């Protein structure tokens, strides 16, 4: 089994924004008990294969643009699936 580690809570208060979007309209004031994510050796192995260029491209978009981009991909995949199904004898 995987050795899942829990997460700890500290009581920092912080001002958080939508990182990466660089757009103040997405800024929100949050007083949170910040969740500390402890490194997990299993996750670290998986992390090595993550294509960060895709993530950085997404982070240049606003949250709404990210959502609409994914929606477009879902709709496109559905069209491809339907076309494939119709093409089969």
């Amino acid at each position, binding site marked *: 089994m995987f050795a899942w580690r829990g997460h700890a809570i500290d009581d920092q208060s912080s001002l958080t924004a939508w990182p990466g979007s660089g757009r103040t309209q997405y800024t929100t004031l949050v007083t*949170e008990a910040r969740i500390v994510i402890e490194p997990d050796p299993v996750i670290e192995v998986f992390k090595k294969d993550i294509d960060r260029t895709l993530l950085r491209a997404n982070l240049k978009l606003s949250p709404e643009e990210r959502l609409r981009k994914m*929606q477009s991909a879902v709709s496109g995949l559905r069209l491809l699936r339907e076309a494939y199904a119709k093409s089969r004898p």
Partner: protein
Amino acid sequence: MTATDFPALITLLTEGGVEFIVIGGVAATIHGSAHITVDLDLLYRRSPDNIERLATALAPIRPYLRGAPEGLPFHFDTATIHRGLNFTLQTTLGALDLLGEVAGAGTYDKVLPEAETALLAGRPFHCVSLRRLIAMKRAAGRPKDLNVIAELEALLEEHERDE
């Protein structure tokens, strides 16, 4: 089965005044994930008023238990929502999972203070924070989530690098 229309579902609920927080794969997308998801997962508030608003808002898109045989006497009304907690639904706008409570997070009221606010067509809605989303995925403990968790943690590193 129809492809889920995520913006339309979120807009329907915000226009209906429903109190909810986007979680799961769509929340990951909003935070920058490159993964694709097929359903919308929402943590909804279990107050009587909100349950009423939820039932009213969803009625036009005919929610039905996803994967269940047709013809069951299932009506997604206030009584059904009060009796249940978590619902996996198929609607005319696609797949919608409504959760009253979730592992690694708890209830709407517990998650709301740390949730973030995004805009969709000018309307605000709540999205779970990236850190909370990672905690949820870790708490679920599903092997299929390992790659997603790794991506979310990479996103967290990218965010912190930019700060």
